């Protein structure tokens, strides 16, 4: 069912145009504040601003927080494990990107 048959929806690109507060990030990713505080403490997320009330998360934190949330929930990984897993996944992604740059590199 299409509620807006004639209009074309448009919206900002989160990573380029949006900064999120702690409350917004928790709402969007459906994750409790304490969890995000833990992840910031562990360096998984790096907001700007001094106190949690002033924190601003770059748009890219959305993807990272969702990834962390899924891994924590599905595989029951604790905070330091999440930090390690995301660092390793970043490293694997960087290596995959390097592979893609050479001729015939697999996707």
């Amino acid at each position: 069912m299409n509620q807006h048959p004639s209009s074309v929806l448009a919206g900002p690109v989160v990573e380029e145009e949006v900064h999120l507060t702690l409350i917004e990030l928790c709402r969007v990713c459906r994750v409790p504040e304490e969890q995000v505080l833990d992840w910031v403490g562990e360096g998984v997320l790096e907001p700007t601003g001094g106190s949690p009330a002033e924190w601003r998360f770059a748009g890219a934190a959305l993807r990272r927080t969702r990834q962390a949330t899924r891994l924590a929930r599905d595989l029951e990984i604790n905070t330091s494990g999440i930090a390690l897993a995301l660092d390793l996944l970043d490293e694997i992604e960087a290596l995959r990107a390097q592979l893609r740059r050479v001729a015939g590199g697999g996707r």
Partner: protein
Amino acid sequence: MKFKDYYETLGVERAASQDEIKKAYRKLARKYHPDVSKLPDAEARFKEVNEANEVLQDPEKRAAYDQMGANYRAGQEFQGPPPGWDAGFEFRGRGDERGFGTAGDFDASEFFETLFGRHARQARGQARGAHRASGEDHHAKVLIDLEDAYRGAQRSISLRMPVLDAQGHVTLEERRLDVNIPKGIRAGQHLRLAGQGGPGVGGAPAGDLFLEIDFNPHPRYRVDGRDVYLDLPLAPWEAALGATVSVPTPAGSVELTVPPGSSAGRKLRLRGKGIPSAQPGDLYAVLAIALPPADSATAREAYAAFGRAFPSFDPRR
């Protein structure tokens, strides 16, 4: 509907202990978790593994499944359970969030639902006696073509969204949206569509819809952030003597000057021809040397003459 052998899915014997099942599940869940695995069918396999675990980790469900499934093999046509098959068992479906899905819900197969019923999906933000609550934010993935990111595009997407019916049951409803894909968007980025998420309660605003963008695999281009790579085959004489060749880019063909003495694997950069934006990416042509086939007397003679012209050339030194 095919019968599903949950033991086979987890790779355990029918006599496996609960401990062995848990261990096998954990191992496969890590292996196929869609955030970890890049296998094209990782998400589907992860769901299968979760479904198998959902049944086998629960002693009651496992016992009922065993009793019903003793005479079935995986893939066999399944007629549905005999009446009263679950008499005497008490199913305690897990109400907590599990599994990989847009709403974090457990995404069960038809086979599972025939046996154990629709998983109790709680519409979050609805219950809890709240009089006024903002709608929840929804997430979905959208596949676009690389060309869409070069030009901007309008895409029709369909989403399956959980909605509450009058009786308070959750059903999945197909919803079609026309979305503007802005020029310059990259894989992994999100579009935020305000007010397109779940409905609010008591006059509160609806949630937002977040669309994660990914590119369809392209037969010609590889994408790395804003940069785009393609393989550019050259004839040996083009690579050796230099040439001006036409390179197809997602925005149309451009002329590229290949300098003399170019070797295979060399990357020639077309500045600013990657994904466009305020800081556009670059397009890289990765050179490859293609040899013409030696399939005629003339061709063989040409190769022989080629060889005679370089008596001291040793490619292995």
